[in-house]
Each structure stands twice: as C-alpha cells, then as structure tokens.
C-alpha cells in the first residue's frame, strides 16, 4: 500500500510512519518540517494549504491523518483552521485522488464532558460537550471524517489516550518541567485511575487500524495500554524516570478547577509566553478517572499493546539517562 502520513514530525506521527514502513508499506509523510523517518519520503507543507494537501494525496492508497494543533491554550480560530479545516482538506484531497482508506487519529477528549470515565467504550464525538478548543475542534473533525465514510473511502477514527514515551514534548516534558521547577501539584488525593498509552502501542494500534479499516470503518476506537493506574503513581513514575522529584504538594481538585478556569480567563486577555500553568480541562483530567473498555478495540483491530506500563517507564528512564 502507498500510505500518506500527515503530521509525521510529531512524536506520535513519526512513530506511526515508522510502524507503517515496518509493516512493508510505501510511506510518504506530510508536514512542515522534514520528518526524518527512515524509509519514508517527505512532502513538506501545511494542512491549511489545500493545494499542498491535494498534491500529497495523489497516488496514495491510504492516509493516516495526524496533523493537528495540540495545545491547552491558544487562539480558537487557529484550532478551527488547523484541526477542522485541515481535516476537511485531507478528506477532500482523498476523495479527489481516489484514496480508498483514511485513518483519522483523534482523542478520547472528543466525547468527554468532564465527568469520570470508568471502563466505558468510545462514545460518539460531541463538540458541544468537549472541554477546550482542542477537544472541540478534534470532535468536529472526527465527525467530519466519519461522515465521509463511504464505499469509496473507508474511514476509521482511532483515539489514543494520553500518549507518552521517550522524546515526548507534550505530556512527559510538561510534567517533568513543572516538577523540576516545583510547579506540579497533586490534585486531590491523586487516586483517580487513569489509563495512558505508551507511544509504541499507540503507533502499532494506528497501524493495525490501517490494516483493518475495511472491517472497522465508520467507527471510533479508544486505544490505551489497558493498565489504569492512580494519577499520582503515573506522575511519580514519569518523574522517577526523569530523575526529578515527584509532586510534593497538593491542591484540592475543586480549587484547581476554579483556579484553572480563572487562569484560562486571564490567559485569554494576556497570553503568556508558555501555556497557562493550570486550566479547567487539565484540572479535570488530573482529578477524575479516565479508563476505557478495551475489549472491542483489541478484538476489532486484532491488536494488543506490546509494551507494558512498567516496561514503558524503564524505556523512558533509559532515554533520560542517555
């Protein structure tokens, strides 16, 4: 298969491109910077450039669409432009180029209203429920993508939850930076169970979805390690791997939500150089349970995670040690 992978300069995109190459496919990547994926050819451009997307899609059998604006704060219009507009451009390009398969990489936050998720499957995306501009625009884009599912273009959405691993500039880097500067509190008692996804597992699940899209098209699948842990243990595990002190101070979950929404409001008026130190979304994420029923995902994608949580921590520690 000739496969286009968008957003391959990010941690997950690169890993996916590598996994697809390893599966024996011919891979072209599409992003603004060179991907550096061995065995893949780069096609540079932005998903906001419809012509560039259309060029990249020519001659492809399948597309894995990862390119997105991922952030806790920022201009809402920018999220719309990249996440919704970019996805629309990919769908249109796929349709025009006669691409037969599309894997849309999404996020469980597209169906998350802020309450705990305890062993649920993948609910339908709902931009009205989603918290924050990232989740809202990812939800709209997932609905667009699944709506495009047809006999000519088979579409499946895969939602890896909290992807982390060596080289991760999102979750791991944020946690480690904040812990290092003493700005990482534990929210509440830290016992809320959270399931995460080690980078290799997320990549292999997306690659599996690509193989299975003819059987699973039209649906959404949440992907995780299937190993929920208390959030404090996860934070402690990541900090330990990085050799920094784990969170030593606590903030009540309720207070953090209030503070998060206040800080968000201030940030909107006077955006800082970095992201806000706390958002309501983050406060909810860190104080409520998020774990999922993985039975359907594993059965339908014919996939199982190869790297356990503990092995992931070992690999993360090794990467910091280098």
């Amino acid at each position: 298969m000739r496969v286009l992978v968008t957003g391959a300069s990010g941690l997950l995109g690169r890993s996916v491109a590598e996994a697809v190459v390893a599966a024996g496919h011919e891979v072209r990547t599409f992003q603004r910077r060179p991907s550096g994926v061995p065995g893949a050819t780069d096609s540079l451009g932005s998903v906001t450039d419809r012509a560039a997307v259309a060029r990249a899609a020519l001659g492809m059998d399948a597309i894995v669409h990862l390119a997105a604006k991922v952030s806790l704060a920022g201009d809402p219009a920018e999220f719309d432009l990249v996440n919704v507009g970019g996805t629309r451009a990919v769908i249109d390009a796929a349709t025009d180029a006669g691409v037969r398969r599309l894997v849309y990489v999404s996020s469980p936050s597209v169906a998350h209203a802020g309450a705990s998720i305890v062993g649920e499957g993948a609910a339908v995306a709902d931009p009205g429920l989603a918290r924050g501009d990232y989740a809202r625009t990812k939800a709209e884009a997932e609905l667009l993508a699944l709506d495009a599912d047809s006999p000519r273009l088979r579409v499946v959405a895969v939602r890896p939850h909290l992807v982390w691993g060596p080289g991760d500039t999102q979750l791991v880097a944020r946690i480690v930076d904040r812990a290092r500067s003493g700005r990482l509190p534990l929210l509440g008692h830290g016992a809320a169970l959270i399931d995460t996804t080690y980078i290799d597992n997320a990549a292999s699940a997306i690659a599996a979805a690509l193989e299975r899209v003819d059987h699973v098209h039209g649906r959404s699948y949440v992907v995780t390690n299937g190993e929920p842990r208390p959030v404090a243990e996860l934070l402690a595990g990541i900090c330990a791997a990085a050799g920094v002190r784990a969170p030593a101070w606590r903030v009540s979950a309720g207070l953090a939500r209030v503070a998060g929404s206040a800080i968000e409001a201030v940030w909107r008026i006077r955006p800082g150089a970095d992201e806000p130190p706390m958002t309501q979304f983050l406060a909810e994420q860190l104080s409520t349970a998020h774990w999922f029923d993985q039975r359907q995902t594993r059965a339908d994608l014919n996939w199982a995670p190869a790297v356990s949580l503990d092995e992931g921590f070992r690999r993360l520690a090794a990467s910091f040690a280098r």
Partner: protein
Amino acid sequence: MTSRLPRTASTPAAATLPLAGLAGLDPAFSRLVEVPERSSATGVTRTWHVLDNGAELERRGVRPTGTILCVHGNPTWSYLWRRLLTAATDATADARTEAAAWRVIAVDQLEMGFSERTGTPRSLATRVRDLTDFTDAIDLSGPVITLGHDWGGVVSLGWAVDHAPLLAGVMLLNTAVHQPEGSPIPAALRLALRGGVLGPATVSTPAFLETTLALAHPSLSTEVRNGFRAPYRGAARRGGIGAFVADIPVDSAHESAPELDRIAESARTLAVPALLLWGPRDPIFSDRYLDDLVDRLPQADVHRFEGAGHLIAEDVDYPPVVLGWLGERVGERASLAETAGTTETAETVETEVPRLPLWHYLEELQDNSGTALIEMAPPGGRRPRVVSWRLLSRRVREIAAGLIGIGVKRGDRVSLLVPPGADLTAVLYACLRIGAVVVVADAGLGLRGLTRAVRGARPDHVIGALPGLLAARALGWPGQKISTVRLSPPLASALGVSFTLGDIAGLGRSFDEALPARPDVDEIAAILFTSGSTGPAKGVAYTHAQLSALRDALAVQYGIGVGTGLVAGFAPFALLGPALGATSVTPDMDVTSPRTLTAASVAQAALAVNATVVFLSPAALTNVVATSVSLTTADRRALAGVQTFLSAGAPVSERLLGEAAALMPGATAHTPYGMTEGLLMTDITLDGIRAALGADKSSHARTDPDSTDPDSTDPGGVCVGVPAATTRVRISALDENGEATGRPDEVPHVTGEIVVSAPHLKDHYDRLWLTNRESARGTAPGQRWHRTGDVGHLDDVGRLWVEGRLPHVITSPDGVVTPVGLEQQIEAVGGIERAAIVGVGPVGTQQVVAIVETTPRERRARFATARFATASLASADLASVVRGAVRHPIAAVLVVPRLPTDIRHNSKIDRTRLAGWAGGILSGGRMIRP
C-alpha cells in the same frame, strides 16, 4: 354506608379507555367489555375497562397455556399489573415453542380505574358476583390462575372458590381474608373509617390514594404516580375508593362479613397450587395476615421480599417470579405425564438410615450423675455452673411438660432469645422433644438483623432473657413471651411476659403424665438464621432427621461421643453437646464478641471437663494466640490433654491455625468447611493444609510466571479438604460474566460455585421460595443440593479449594478473577496484615484493586506509593511490592486502617462494600474510610 360518603361519590359515569401515554402501559392492551349484570332483573349492562393481551397473543399465533386473572385492590387499578402483561407477552417471543404462554386479563373493578361508575356502592359479595359476570361475559375458559392484591386478593379468592373446575392456581400479593379474633384492624384503616374522616380522606381529597402511593419502597417515579392517579382525578371519580374502605368488615355485623368468612373458610378447600408473595414493610397487611393465609393454604409457596412493602408489585420485579412459578407449578403439570417415565435414573436416591433422636442421651443418661454441661461464667453468677445429666434430663422433661401445659403445640414456632448456656440447652431440647420448632437467631446478627429474623419467622412463643424481651417489646416482635428469669410483676407486665421458665418447669413438675409421642423425623425441628453477612439473614429449616444426621456426621468426623469433654469456644456449638452425649463447657466469654475470648478462659474451661475436643471460632483465634503468654503451667497442662481442635465458620489461615494448635500440642487441628445450610461439608487437618500449601507452592515453582501454561493461572484459594463421609461436592462453572451457569460437576481445576449435598443439609429456606429455587438451580431433581454462594475448585485428589464468594468474583477483560488466592499471595508480603481483592468498573472490564491493612496500622485510608508507604515498609514501594506478589495486574493498591468484616465472625471481609468504596475513590471521589 353511602350516607357516610359525600353525594359526589355516587356520580355515575361511563367507562372509558385510559388516556394514552401512561408510563409503562401499552395502550394496545386496553379494551372495554360490556358485561350483563346477571343479578339484576332489569338486564342492566355494565362496561368494564380491562387490560388483556389475548388479542396480541392471537396475532402472534400463540395458543395460551392458561389465563392469569388479575384483580387490583383499593385504590389502585389494572395499571398495577402493566408489567406482568408486558412480560407475559414478551415471553412468547421466546423461540421455544415448549414454553408456556399466558394470557393475562387485568380488570378494573366497577367504580374503580376506568370502569363504569354505577352510582351504587358494591359489597364484597356483589364484587365477587361482578367478577363472575365478567368472566362469563368473555366466556373465559380454563385453566385460570387468579392473582390478587389488597382487597382484590379477597375478590380474586372469592372468584376462585366459586370456579373450582376452571381453577389451576391462586396467587396473592399482600392481602388478608380474615381478621384474627380479638385483634383490631390496622390503625390506618381504623382512622380512615372514622365518621368525619372517611369521606374527606377517600373521596373529597386524594389523601387515601396519595398515602397508598407513598408506601412504595423505593418511591414511585412521578410518571408512575401519575399513572395510578389518572382514573381518580376529581372527587366524582373517587366514590369507589371511599366505598371500598367503607366495605371493610370491621365486625361480624358488617354487611360484607358473611361473604368474607365464606371466602376465608372455602380457601381451605382449594387444592390447587398457591403462591404468596409478600412485602413485610406493610402498615396494613402485616406478617400476621401472611400467617393466616399460610394456615389456610398450607400448600402455598411463600416468598417474603425483605424490604418490600404494601405496593410489592411496584417494589419488586414480580413478573418473572410469577411466570417462573407458573411454569414450574402449573404449566408443567399438563406435560408431567409424558416426562414421568424418563426422570433421573443415573443418580442414586438418598436412603435415610434410621437415626437416634437428638434427645437420645438425655433419656439414656437420665439417672447419670456425671456432668452434662458447665458454664464457666453463668449470667449473674461468679462461679461456674455445673449441670449433671440427671438434672439436665429432668429439667428438659419438666420444661417440655410445662410448655405443653401453657399451650405450646407441636409445630408451634418458639423463638429462643436466650444466650447460649444451660437455660438455652434445656429449653432447646424440651422444644425438640415436644415437636415445637425452635427458631434460633444469634445475637451476632445485631438488633436490626434479629428483628427482621424474628418478625420473618413469626414465632408463636418467644422465650428470652431480659435483653431479648426488652428488644421484643421495643420492636414489637410477635408471640407469647416467656422469660428465663423472674421479673418484678410491673416489669413482667410491661414486657408482656406471661410466664417465666421457672413457672413452666414448676408446672411441668406438677404433671405426672408421660410426654406426648415423639415428633416425626420429617417434621421441621429448627429454623436457624444465617449470619446475614450476605444480605438479609435467611431462616434455614431443618427436620429432626437432618439435625440427627448432623449430630452423627460430627460424631463420626471428630470421634465425639459419650464422655467426650468438649470446650465450646463458639457458644452455639455447646448446644450440640447433649445430642452427642458429650460433656460441654462454655468458657468465660462475651458471646456477642468472639474476638475477646482469651487463652486462659479456654484453658480453664478445658481443665473443668478434662477436655479432649476444643472448638474455637476463627475470630477468637487471634486473641487466644495473642493472650497465650498469660497461660499458667496448669493451663498449659490442661490444653495439652486436648486431642482434637476445631475452628470453623470462616476460612482460617494456616499460620493462625498453626499458632493456636501450638497451644494444644497433643491435638490434631481441624477446620471444617460448611455454612448454616450445611454445617459440616468438608474437613481438613493442619497437616493437610500444610501439605496443600506445599503442593501449591511446588506447582507454582514449576511454572515460569510469564509462561502461558494453564498452571500459571491456578487460582489458588483456601484448601478446605475433602468432603465429609456423607457429603458430595460439585462445581458449577463460572461463565465470562462471573455467573455460575455450568452444570454441577466433579471435574477438577474448574472454578465455579460450590454445590453440596448431604443427609444433614438443610431442608429448605423459610418463606423464601425464590431463594430455595435458586439454591437448587440446575441440580439433579429429587435430590437435596445446595448452591453455597462460595466459589472454588476441586483438585486432582478431590480436595476442595475455596476462592471467595460468588458476588465477589471479578470479571476482568482477561477473564474471571477470584479474590482469595490473590489475597493470600499479598498477605505473604511482610508488613501486610490482611488484604482484600475487589473489582472496580463495569462487568467484563473490571480492574483489580488490592486493599491492604498493614502493621502497624495506617490511621487514614490512602493509596500506596513510595512516598506514602508505611513505616514498616520504609523505603520499599508498597504498591510495587504488592503488584510483584501477584500474577494478575493490579490497578491500584489502597491502604486502610481496618478492613470491614462481618459482626458474627469478624473474619469475612466485606468485599462488596470495599468495592463500592474503592470505586468511588478511584474515580476521583473523596478519600474516606471504607
């Protein structure tokens, strides 16, 4: 009686169909029926509104097996039966053509619901005739099973007794057909019937209707309330409600009294199957009315739904119960003849061996001056109380004769609220001898559990010590009250005590006549209550033969016989002493708190009878071991004479049993496995436990923990040994939802519900028809088998391993997980005192959580990480140590100050409660103690 109701009560109105959109009611079932009134010479026709699934069955091409004729009470209407119509109709969608199909017809009685308002009040006799007019009008043919609630129960029974040729069964929910002599009608109805109250309460205002709707447990939804209110909006619609209340026969002069008497007496002649479903939380129809119905319909299957009340049809999901019962008792009667020839031949039928009665040794040793029993700390006494066989035998005879003297009859139920000791022993054997049924509920149930137990068992007599009688008075327990101690006349009168045990024995002494004939071996001898650790306590009925079989099983298993000195460290065990011919002694202990028993108390009790057998509850073992340092040389010598040491009631760890056994160096330690329903099912010795542990360890050592070899998924558990001589054990395999759906079998290494059979197994559960049925589900017909609710497996040499309780089975994405094996592995970790394994999350995808109690104890509940590890684990990461100890992934490890356990044994961990607690915390809830 109309004069007592407002004029508006007699407003005539035509029947109508209900408005559409009433919650849960399919409008397709509604129809209006023209019914000629036979009794009226003028040829009046009345219009009835009824719910009827007949047309729908016909549309589906289903020929009904029979018809359920449902009659509502006051102030409900056919809406009460909406779920039965739906369930009976849906059941016909089942592809099995063999399944019975039921037509359900639920009427709105005239003046009620959406039926015609005739403007004339209707007496009970009229209503029974009305119903006949209706069934004639629709040309109802048999077989018919009636179903009635409240006063509809009386009307339905009236129809039933008049239609014997059509009748195939009667079913009743909370109702009454007879007001016991000398007892007033319920206060709520008395109030409603008062002159100035009746009209306003029932007709002018919806007070009676609203009060009735408020009786539901849990509360009705607004939608359902509106369903019940629909036909009664406006005073003119409510005349029937007032007239119905006015028609309650308050005395024999009432117009409807003769008809009520006729129905009540004729009910005794009904030979058809009967089902009584009862909600005990009913301020109108209390349990005494259930008693009266059981007396009239002795063939009835009875189920009391603990917690349900007057509106039982709303409180309980009754349609499957009704349909299940019909299928079993009525539907299969027709096809019985065909299958009769092909019933089980493979299973051997139990042959009952003749057994000595329980009081045998009290007769044989009646002139023996040897010691029968000793109480080391009798109530109110400072010195041990010693009772000889001669004295005990005489006392039993006197009490037996005295009980007969005060009117205790064979088959009467006698509740014993007496702490274990000489009095209880004497009363127990006296009751057994005269054929009275003893009801024994242990104080360990707690007051609430005891109240439920005593109310549910409906004793005719209560024999109690002061605390029991005070509770009986305060909580309104039924039955004639007898005190074990002499009370001051004002106190006796305040407590409603009619006799003391002394009076009764004195009365018995004055009788010279021989005691009456012995009760038959198949009569019920006792009702023992379960611990209530697994839901409301259940009454377990044993026959004389079954209790004798229990005595024989114990005698054979432990070599207990005449002359054996027996220390009963679990007080109720002392009751069996006289039946075994053994000399039993109760140590100085608080029977309600077994964990306070000390080693010195056990030793002194052993010394008093030269004990060779010691029985201790598992809860007592910890303290006995902990207090063993205070044992004197003499104490130790007494304990050295013990040959058999027993501990039972809950799983006992090898370590604890070993430590306790070390105090009795000459003894073989045993721990039998059983339950209230079957007290000795298997047995294992300490050596046997150690052998099992060794075998278990070596089998683990053989396998690589990461391999996929099936051995590595050995669920472990507590080895409880091999079945006792007359016991059979089978396993009903669990399915992926954690339900025991497998056919009971003896295949080793299959985890499932433990199913047992023995001559000393229970006869049945008292007034719990559903529970009985569930208890024998899937077992060979014609035999007594019992599903224990425990899960476990058999091994290659026939030993049984207990892995936990059925409701505690965890359904993880990788398959079912049983708790005990994992708990044992965690408890082997240093610094962990006890562990509980529970599941959180939805069935099928549950995560396994470990909850541990550490030494030293944590003061607050929290979860374990390196930072918060307890002092005893210092630098070690408790969570990773716990994870490392077990082979199944553990999502979280929580540390608690103390794991919640049951009151009776202080050893059965309440995993259900812990699972709910852990589920809350792990989803972000507040960190509180379990």
